[in-house]
Every structure is written in C-alpha cells, then in structure tokens.
C-alpha cells in the first residue's frame, strides 16, 4: 500500500542512473537531495521518526537495486543526520554521547525516540537542507581553491581517467603555476583521453600514456592526484579500474597519492573482497576483445571490471572542501557526517 507510489520517485532516480541519464556523482547527489527535499515538502509526515522511516526505505530500495551506487545513499544518510540534529535542537533535548557527564546523569526520559511532533521541524530541516545543497554545489570549487597549496612549480602530476574534480583542481592550479601533467588513459573506457584534451586546451602541458606505462613513468612523477568513486569506511577507495596498480607504483617510488573527494563520497561501508557483487560491476567484454574475434570467443572468459579497491595504506591524503585529512582520520569524518545508527542498513 505504501510501497508503490511512494517509491516511484526513487525508482525514477534508480532508472535514470541505470540508463546513464545521470552519470556524475555530482548530479546524482544533487538529484537525491532534490528528491528528499520534495519528499519532506510534499509528503505528509507527522514525526521525525516517520520521516526517517520513509528515508530509510528509500535507502534500502537503492541498495537492493544498485549495490554499487554509494553517492545517493550517502546523501540520504546525511539528510537523516540533519533530521536528527534538527529534531534535537528543536526539542531542546540533548542527544546521546554529548559528554561523559551527561551520559551518566541522563535518565530514561532524556533518550530521544524522535516521535514528537514539532511544528518548526519541517522548516528548520528545509533550511538546513538548503545549506547542504549549497555545500554540495560549491564543494567542487572549494576543493579546486586548495590547488595552489598542493601543486608547486615544475612538478609532474599524474592522474588517471577522467574526474571532473581533478580537472577543475588542475586548471585552477595552472592559473598561477607552471607544471606538467601525465594522464593515464584508462583503457578500455579511454576517459583519460578527454581529460587530456581538455587540459591541453587550457594550456597545460599534457602527456597521455597507456596503463602499462605507469610503473615506468612513476619514477619521474612528483604527485599522483586522483578522484574516486567512493571512499570506504576504513579509508580505502573504490576507484576506477587500474588505480590500485597506480597506487602501488606510487608507494614503490614514495610518491604521495592525493585523493580529491567530496563529502558525499564517504560511505560507512566496509568491503570484503574485490570481486564481491556489492563492490564491483563488470561491463561488456566487447570493450576488451571485439566481437569480430570470432571463434575464440566461444572458449574464453573475458573480464572488464569497472572498479578497483585501493587499501588505505596506499593513500596519502584526502582533500575535501574542508581541507586535507589522512586516511586514518576517515572514521572521525564519518561520525560527523552520519549518525551511528544509520551506518548499517
């Protein structure tokens, strides 16, 4: 009864993602935020708990249909946190874990169950959501603004594939610094090619190398700057295929690996293995070996994974709109982003 029409907005979102109508994490984040805004505005909900239930069902829906899609669920989780915060401040009751003293002195009546119906809740949540939206939209620029702190003159920067954030970052740095960029092409998707073309147009000296040349080039590279699809709870990355090898080579030559990530990419999930269904998708093998190969296709297996797992030891720095962080600090960031109860769903 509740199910069908309610979840139609989410199924729309899911189908858009599946059909590649929205591809960028940025667009997904914005769309998710819009979706929840509409939900909060238009749906009838009486208490925070009810609202949270609605949001949680949507998170579950997305997780069932698109296990690797993390941005949408992260945004939703963050919004859950926003709801909790607003509720707490509106009911003027303190939430859990504020301080040891409060923990000891609190009594059962203080424990929040979010079921009070508060009139100001809706508007305060919407205000906060508005701020959040601005944060998402300006996240890219904020990261790019930090570029000159990280890139010096005459450096050789290596990047992999195409990340919108990295592109902006490099272009911003190129305004006052002179440096060279090596782009790893990222076969079989060849995103690196479009990034290289775009950078070269902005007058940055760019070289394109195939994936196999990473180790060879690494001895001359000063920094590796990459974007990622998701940042996992242990500080590891789910990034595009081939980045693990790049990170390993960087470690070998002691080259710092800087990961540019927005806050909506931090997810509270851990991954178990690289081949896990929830972790990786394989795309069409035709990108690796064409149909015209004929007879041998009957007898061989071909894999074309989209993602790669990079363990946290290989990452030097995370840059978000608030500044830089070490991978070991990620757990703390997560606790600021999401509420403990919302981690596992």
């Amino acid at each position, binding site marked *: 009864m509740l199910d*069908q029409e309610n*979840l*139609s907005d989410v*199924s*729309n979102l*899911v*189908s858009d993602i*599946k*059909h590649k109508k929205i591809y960028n994490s940025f667009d997904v984040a914005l769309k998710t935020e819009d979706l929840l805004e509409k939900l909060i505005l238009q749906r009838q909900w009486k208490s925070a708990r009810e609202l949270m239930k609605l949001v949680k069902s949507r998170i579950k829906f997305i997780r*069932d249909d698109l*296990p690797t899609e993390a941005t949408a669920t992260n945004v939703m989780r963050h919004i859950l946190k926003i709801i909790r915060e607003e509720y707490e401040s509106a009911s003027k009751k303190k939430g859990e874990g504020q301080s040891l003293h409060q923990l000891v002195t609190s009594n059962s009546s203080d424990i929040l169950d979010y079921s009070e119906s508060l009139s100001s809740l809706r508007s305060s949540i919407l205000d906060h959501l508005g701020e959040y939206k601005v944060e998402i939209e300006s996240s890219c620029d904020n990261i790019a603004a930090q570029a000159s702190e990280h890139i010096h003159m005459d450096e050789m920067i290596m990047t992999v594939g195409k990340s919108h954030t990295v592109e902006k970052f490099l272009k911003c740095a190129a305004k006052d610094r002179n440096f060279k960029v090596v782009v790893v092409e990222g076969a079989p998707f060849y995103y690196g090619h479009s990034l290289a073309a775009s950078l070269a147009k902005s007058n940055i000296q760019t070289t394109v190398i195939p994936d196999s040349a990473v180790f060879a080039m690494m001895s001359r590279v000063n920094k590796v700057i990459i974007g990622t699809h998701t940042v996992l709870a242990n500080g590891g990355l789910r990034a595009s295929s081939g980045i693990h090898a790049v990170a390993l080579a960087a470690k070998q030559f002691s080259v710092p690996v800087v990961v540019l990530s927005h806050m909506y990419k931090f997810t509270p999930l851990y991954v178990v293995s690289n081949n896990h*269904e929830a972790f990786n998708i*394989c*795309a*069409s*093998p*035709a*990108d690796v070996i*064409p*149909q*015209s*190969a*004929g*007879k041998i*296709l*009957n007898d061989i*297996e*071909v894999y*074309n994974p989209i993602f790669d797992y990079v363990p946290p030891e290989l990452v030097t720095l995370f840059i978000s709109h608030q500044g830089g962080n070490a991978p070991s600090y990620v757990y703390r960031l997560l606790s600021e982003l999401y509420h403990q109860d919302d981690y596992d769903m």
Partner: protein
Amino acid sequence: MSNKSEIIRKEKVVQSIVIADTFTDEFVPISDNIPHALLPILNKPLVDYTLEFLSLGGIEEVFLFCSVHSDEIKQHVDKCIKNGDGWTLTMKVNVTVSESCQSFGDCLRDLDARGLLRGEFVLLEPGVLSNVPLLSLLEKHSEIVKADKYAAMTLILQESGIGHRGRGLEDILLATDSLNRVLFYKNLGSRKTKKIEFPMDIFLENSSISILHNLKDSHISICSSSVLPLFSDNFDFQTKDDLIRGLLMNEEILEGTIYAHVLQGSLFGGAVSSWRMYQSLSQELMKKWIHPLTVTRNKNRVLKNNVVIGAGTTIPNSAKISRSILGASVSIGHNVTVEDSFIFSDTKIQDDVVITHSVIASNCTIKSDSKISLGSIIGTNTVLENGTVIENALVQSKQPDNGDEYVKLGNKAFELKVSSDDDGDSVLSTTSKKPYRLHITDIESDDEEDDDSDGFSDSEEELSYTQSPVPDDTKLFFSEVIDSLTRGFDDNLLCDNLILEINSSRYAYNVTVKEVNFNVVKAILSMSLREPIGVQYFSHLSRLLSYFSPVLKNYIRNEAAMLDCLQALEDVATSGESFKEKWVIAILQHMYNKDYLAEDIILEWYRNLDTDGKFVEHVKPFADWLQEAEEASSDDEDDDDSD
C-alpha cells in the same frame, strides 16, 4: 479537446513496433503453452528484456503486436506496470491483438490499417535482446531520408566473427555502396553454400562496393513511414526478407531503398529466433556482452561452471551441473548430470538423470534414470517415466491433435515425429545431417568440417548439369568431330577454326577434356583409315597427319593427353577396321618425331598393353626400336612408305 490540441502540439513521439509472434514452428512444443514473448531467458521473460532495451534506447511508445496467446501477454504487461518495472516509467506499451494474422507481413498490414504510426519507427522482430542506443540511430536514419527520400529502411546488423557461436544461423552477406545503401542481400542461414551469385549490374552501376560477410542479423530495423504501405500494397511480402528482396529487385517500381548500419564495439543486437540463438544469447547475456542488460541479481544466483539458478532451486552435492540455466523452484535429485541445458521453473528432476544439450520446460517431471540429450525439447507439464531415453526429439504432454505422427511414451509424454522436409535444406539433406537444435561443440566442429567437404561435392552435383558424360553424347561428339575434320580437310579450312569448332561442340555436349583428346585423335586416325588402301596410302596418311598437326599439337599437350592419344590409337586399331600392318608404327613414328608423344610415355603405355592382343605385335617393333635408340640422331627414319 484540449487534450487533442496538446497532442498535436506535442513533439513527435518515438514509436516502435514489436512483433511478438514468430509464426514458425521453431519453438514447438513449448510455444504451444507459452507465447514466444514470455519464453524465459535467464529466468526472465523475453519481452521484459525487449521492453527494457527499448526504454533504455529512448522509445516512448511501443505497439506490441500479438496474435496467439495474447491474453497471457496482456496480463504480463499489466503485471509489469503494477510492479513499476523500469521501463514503465518512460514508455507506454499498447498491446495490439489480431488473431487472424498468419505472418509478419500480415501483422504489419494490420498495423497499417489501424494507422497508429506516424513518421519513423523502430521495428523489432520477436525476441530481440540488445543494448543499442536507438535515438542516435533514428537520427541517422532521418538524415539518410533527407538525402534520399525513398529510403525505406535501415537494417541494423552486427559485426560478428566467423565461428562465433551465435553466428551460424544468422549469417548475412551484404553488398553496399559507399553511402551504405544495400545493393545485394542474402541471408545465408545455416546453408553452407560455397557459391554466391551477384547480379552484374550492381558492379556496373556503382563505382565502389563493399561486400560484407562479417555480419549477423540483429533483427532490429529503423523504418520510414513508407514501410507499412509497402507491406499493404504487396500481399506477397510475408517476412522482412521478402520486403528486402522485393525492394532490391524492383527498385523503380516500388520506390524504396534500404540502408545498412553495422554495430561495432560494445553495441550488441540479436534475437531469439531459434533454439541455437536462444542458447547463444543466454550465454552472451550471462557473460555481460549485452551490458547493461543482465541477470537480475536478486532473483538469481550465478554459480561456478557458468550456471545460473533461480530462487528456491536446490542442488545436492552429488549433482554435476555445468553451463546450464535452471529456473526457480527446480528440484534436482542425486547424481544428476546437467550440461549445456536449460530447465525452466518448477520442474522436478529425480535421481540419476542425465540431461545434455536440451531444453526442459516448466512443470515437468523427469523420473529417475532418464537420459535426455542431443537437442531434445521437452514441453510443459510433461512427465517422463523412469528410464526414458530421448535423443534429438520433441516431446509434449498432450496428445497431438493435428494429425502429426507421434509415439506415446507415457500418459503425459508424446514424442513428435518430425517430418523429413523440416528445414528444406536441400544441400544438407543429401548429407542427411540436419544441424542439431542446440549447438553441440564436439559434434558440431566435426560436422562443420564434414559439411564443408560434403557441401562442396553436393553443390557440384547440384549445379551440374555436368553429370557423368552420357555415352550418347560422346558418340554424337565423336561424329561431329569427324564431320568437322573431314570437312576441314576437304575444304582446306584453317586448323584454328577447326579447333574452335571442336571446342564448341565439346561444350555443347559437355565432354570432359580427356574425352575430347581421345576422340579427336580417334577421329583423325579413323579418317585416315577410310582412305583407300593402296600405294597412296601412306603418303595420304602423312599428308593427313601433317595437315592436322596444329590440331594434334593443340590437344596433345601433356602426359595425360598423350596417354589419351595412345589409347585412341589402341582403340582404333582394335576396333576391327582393317589396316596396313605398319600403319600403327607409322602413326607412332610420326607422332614421336613430331614430339607429340614422349618416349617414356610410349614405353610406359607399351608395358601396360595387353600382351595377348594382336595390337601388341604391331607395336612391338617400334617399342623395341625406341628402347634401343638412345640418341635421337640415330638414322633409322625408316620410311615405311616404301612398304
């Protein structure tokens, strides 16, 4: 009212036609119970994939045309809409029913009559699985139409390597010009023809032609608005192939041209038009070639050995399953072997059953110790008793009531006898090896090689009007040769002309080269025998021989010809006509001197002669002389003329 104006103001809706029925018997007996559209592939009905593909491609309105089992299809579509499946959000599906249609062409004529389609649309044959972005193809087609207003259809074909599993039955040979217009189209199917005939004018009229043989039919076409009227106007167009052939043959009359577009890279298109395609498309779907169409994860599990099982299926440890697809709630007994097979939902397989390369429909029960193999299809609700062995057969649960022959295997199992001219593949039928319904690797690869060599000889037989030369013809030929030679000699005609005459008679009577050599020499020799035997004999003989020397030179060119010549000589000599004793020697000598015959050939021939006959005695002196005379300069040019 306002709605209507809205509709008019609205931009053109992207439309598509999906014909749901194959109108063939390919999928009997399963197609008796479930419509082709609902045939489960990787445990999801076929039409779901088609609709998902269409919505991915950007289609907004679909006309799903059904003729049989239309209720079930309608129910299914309604269920999907209720469930809120992916495609329902962006696409509207109209289930159009017409019970009276008997063919693809009929359906299109019906749709034309209803007038539902405006402008260009996508036409899909039944069972299409694909991941092609249709909007860009539609745009491309519009551009082609702008350039050529008679463009009727763009065929979408897929690049595919030779030997690829899914290519065998969908082989297409195409000749296109530089603008991708189709000039020649041939669906090679499963026939292993080694010879293709092209109409000459396509080469004469076009400056550059590409002949493409690396293609497979995707069964998707982009059609202009003229296609439906074309079907309505021509009642004999029953299939898409008919339309293509018709348009290519009668370009001026029908005013339609066809273009082709080849899919490359990760774009994939194919249709389940037969069991083989079903098998190959299942594999390709599983291995992600049709990304983003995939196995629905929450209802299926992928196991090792390329096995997919549906929800609720249990497999005991002792079972050996590989490269198979099992539906939902299938129960497998102990020690069961299932290889390269498809088992639909709710089937029970009991212990010790062996199933290879077969399809078992839903709700069946296969009792213990049965063996099902080699491309058998077991229909819905069948019950096979203990120990049944089925190979390459169709089994259905109800008694066939339309006069087909059958064998009763049990209360709910009737094996259909397939009539012999099933496929109408005349070439293969001569080798009496119909391809199995499913591709069976080991057997198939041998088959292909056999078929290659057999097919070749068969095609020779087929084209031949060259059957082994009928004796009558040879005699006629011989008499003709003699006539022409006699005439030539009498009228003193040029030998070149004589040679031409002989050659043309040869083609007229279809005589082999061997026969020609033989007969020509025989003719010349026979002519010489007709002259009166007298003093003039040998001079006449030598005159004759020298006159015909160009002829002899032309026909006695190699060792085989030499042997023929000697054979002719033997023939004439032993044929009973009387001749001078030294005639044989004279001939041999003359021929040897003129270098028509080589020494060793003569000696070899001599050795092989029948030692009893008189003929040998005639030849002996010459042979001896040959053997003694090592150098050609030896002076016994004994002119037997003196005789």
